[in-house]
């Protein structure tokens, strides 16, 4: 909401107690509560003083974690406070730091200031008493202990998942494991080289001559085909069968039944022995 156009909605008045409760979380209040808070601080002098003190304390708290000062550079005020000298804490500062004081979390020099104030302020001693009692109350809150078998139940729930993970890991190792990897790699390289060699031979049009082709070449026949050359159809070399002695009909046909008793004639005719 712009400052030129103030929110016209009415603001519910805030009590001093409510103000006191909100003073530590003033920066996080929603807009409507924030306006009520500020309006109360404008109209109530003690609460305005409290707000001022709390803001001062917040500044001090922010200094808690400042880098440690170099030796000899410690603030004189801190040294004086630790010695029990110098100004004591105000009521507002004391009230705002009592929880840390009771919990032992206050810096020693701040605690010394608060202690000296508590010695002479009855009201703040009452407040201290209340803070101590409230702490005693909430520390009495007991949480139930876990059941005895909790660890076993958790491990039992984990076992199937662990087994499945182990199976996955084993399958992975089998394929990509330390032992299998060189074997697989070697097989892949070998296959690649073989394929490459075949490809190169085909590209050159050469290659090893097989026995069938060699025989054809020895007989002076044109091969049926050769790599890289057009295919030519040639008549196959077919042996002529000579008629056995006493038979005059030379024929290409073959029928063992024609020459009964002439076993092996086909083999002899084809191979000459």
């Amino acid at each position, binding site marked *: 909401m712009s400052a030129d156009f103030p929110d016209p909605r009415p603001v519910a008045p805030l009590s001093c107690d409510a103000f006191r409760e909100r003073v530590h979380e003033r920066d996080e209040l929603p807009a409507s509560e924030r306006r009520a808070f500020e309006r109360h601080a404008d109209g109530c002098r003690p609460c305005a003083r409290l707000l001022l003190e709390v803001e001062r304390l917040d500044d001090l708290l922010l200094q808690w974690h400042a880098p440690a000062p170099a030796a000899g550079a410690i603030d004189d005020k801190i040294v004086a406070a630790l010695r029990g000298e110098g100004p004591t804490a105000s009521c507002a500062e004391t009230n705002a730091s009592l929880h840390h004081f009771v919990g032992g979390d206050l810096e020693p020099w701040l605690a010394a200031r608060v202690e000296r104030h508590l010695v002479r302020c009855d009201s703040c001693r009452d407040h201290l008493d209340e*803070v101590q009692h409230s702490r005693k109350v909430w520390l009495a809150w007991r949480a139930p202990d876990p059941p005895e078998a909790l660890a076993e139940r*958790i491990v039992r729930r*984990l076992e199937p998942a662990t087994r499945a993970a182990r199976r996955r890991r084993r399958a992975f190792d089998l394929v990509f494991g330390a032992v299998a990897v060189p074997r697989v790699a070697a097989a892949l390289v070998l296959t690649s080289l073989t394929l490459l060699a075949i490809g190169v031979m085909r590209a050159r049009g050469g290659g090893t001559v097989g026995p069938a082709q060699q025989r054809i070449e020895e007989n002076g026949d044109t091969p049926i085909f050769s790599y890289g050359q057009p295919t030519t159809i040639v008549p196959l070399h077919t042996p002529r069968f000579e008629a056995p002695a006493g038979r005059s009909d030379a024929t290409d046909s073959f029928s063992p039944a024609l020459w009964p008793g002439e076993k092996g004639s086909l083999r002899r005719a084809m191979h000459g022995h």
Partner: protein
Amino acid sequence: MDDLDFQTLELARAGDLDAYREFVRAYERPIHHTVFRLVGSRFSAEVEDITQDVFIKLFRALPQFDPGRGTKLSSWVFTFVKNYCFDVLKRRRLPMISIDAGEDGATIPIPSRSQGPRDELSSREIQEAIARAVGLLPREQRLAFVLREYEGLAYAEIAEISQCSEGTIKSRIHRAKEALRFRLRRLLFDTEGELP
């Protein structure tokens, strides 16, 4: 809370279930207590299930924990607890708690005045009243308060878990304690304005 020895932690990180059993035994009490206090009495029946789920998640994430980074194991563990509990609260769509809740004391069941809080601090009614009062805290305040007051974690650790500065944590704890003091005020007084 004792951190595990290095060897057990390494075995647990490698997936050894016996080592993880030791891990669970070391952390089951603080985690169970913290879950109970964070999710509140409304889910008290589910605290064990939530604790188990947290441990299952921890087991799966444990290999990612790197002790060399300087993170304490307890901080890392409680970060999981926080995230899981906040997820649970978010999933169940718990209403956001107003800072005014319980201001009049009517929302918190108060035990009868005849019972002196000093004598019967562990009585069931008072336990419920405290649980209710803590449950009314905003969750970030509740987390900081629970980890500090009940688990004794250092401010720096809580800051790491909550991913904010130590100053913010101190401020949250202070606000939580002030709110509790107001809400539990009627537990403290037998008669108006006087301590028992």
